[in-house]
């Protein structure tokens, strides 16, 4: 019967909840990690800056299944973080999405910071600004680019399947409530079952969610 899964009262609500909680937490952590890196690389002049920038840019295209595999190896019993017992939990998914989104946020924010005209930095210095003031003014000038980076990171996190499937396991409880099932992994499952209508509805829900988050963030950013 079409839409069988959606008939479960908790099914849709719980997968949306897991998707949003995991991706928003991952983006928050990833932003806290990425912006200082973008800031330091964008402002400091040091040997190896180009290499670091190249590594960050390469990270933007890092395959999510490989990230999932590496995170799984790190979190598995024999891995360095095995003692935390995080395999097949939302926390593991947060870690993998955080790793996936970080290069995107860092790369786009870095490019936005670097593209602020030197003349603007000079102007900030010329009005009597300290180095912190110059950095803050530059960051403010780059704000739309930085926000775009965060949104791109969010887009990558919430829409990815490979790594959350590997480290989360796409688990739902017997009553249909999601433990580690996200909208994307649910779409994969429904498609495999031949429930294309349900998969399509879930796809539409995902699109609306991404649109909503983008709208809210852009509204807050004043655009």
């Amino acid at each position, binding site marked *: 019967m079409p839409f069988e899964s959606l008939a479960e009262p908790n099914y849709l609500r719980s997968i949306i909840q897991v998707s949003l909680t995991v991706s928003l937490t991952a983006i928050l952590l990833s932003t806290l990690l990425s912006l200082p890196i973008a800031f330091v690389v964008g402002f400091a002049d040091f040997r190896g800056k180009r290499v670091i920038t190249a590594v960050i840019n390469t990270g933007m295209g890092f395959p999510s299944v490989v990230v999932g595999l590496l995170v799984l190896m790190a979190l598995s019993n024999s891995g360095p973080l095995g003692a935390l017992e995080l395999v097949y939990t939302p926390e593991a998914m947060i870690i993998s999405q955080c790793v996936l989104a970080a290069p995107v946020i860092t790369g786009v924010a870095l490019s936005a910071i670097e593209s602020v005209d030197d003349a603007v930095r*000079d*102007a*900030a210095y*010329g*009005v*009597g600004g300290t180095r912190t003031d110059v950095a803050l*003014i530059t960051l403010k000038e780059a704000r739309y680019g930085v926000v775009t980076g965060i949104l791109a990171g969010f887009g990558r996190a919430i829409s990815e399947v490979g790594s959350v499937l590997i480290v989360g396991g796409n688990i739902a409880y017997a009553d249909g409530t999601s433990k580690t099932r996200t909208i994307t992994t649910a779409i994969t499952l429904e498609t495999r079952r031949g429930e294309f209508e349900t998969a399509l509805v879930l796809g539409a829900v995902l699109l609306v969610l991404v649109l909503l988050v983008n709208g809210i963030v852009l509204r807050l950013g004043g655009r």
Partner: protein
Amino acid sequence: MNLELEHASYGVDDTDILDDVSLTLSSGEIMTVIGPSGAGKTTLLRLAALFERPTDGVVRFDGMDPWSLSRDDRLEFRRRIGMVFQQASLFETSVARNVDIGQRVRRPWSQRIRGFIRRVADRWIRSAPTVDDRTLEALDLVGLREAWDRDAGSLSGGEAQRVSFARALAAGPDLLVLDEPTSDLDPRNTAILERAIERARGRDHGVLLATHDMHQAERISDRVAFLLEGELIEVGPPERIFDDPRDERTARFVNGDLLYDENGLLA
């Protein structure tokens, strides 16, 4: 505040951009720096505004060498200098917030954070923006008092440069360092800025101005300095520099003669 450059040089990778320049500038005086492109005018101004440290020699303010002081102490000197660049380089915000930036960066952090929170709250409840008297006074001087709540991006090039001048002035500097501020402006905007520069002199500000406009140098300077290939050729009152220069190279430059041969070498 009196500015003094004593045998100041500045070089990058063994190339001298400015070579052994000595000059003084007193409060209430306008000194214009003229010279062909690449003569080192901007570098001279950046040394005077404490953007760069001379690789040799000393820059002094009221007899003190700010580069011998700690960064915090040097900041106090920097904050007595207002710099205007060839490009307006306004920040992406309102005109008023561009002009009062100098005052804001001088406030203690607790006050700045409170101001930020208030601004975010004001934005949510959409309350009308406000402006302080000092900002309006600086804008008044460049004839843009009414534009305080406009977005800086909506200004014309000439208006933006006038706002940039008001921004330098609003922080209350003793010395103004102006790097070709009117080179991209039409005659009307140039006249407004020149009037503002003269009014700044009237308030006892020292003004160091680089320009390519010989007529401007003649109009507003108390003294003119001619710079060529990083070397200060001569300094003197405009009448002398333009009518009776002591150095032959100055005479050729002010007469518009080519100083360079076809190989780009000083002839």
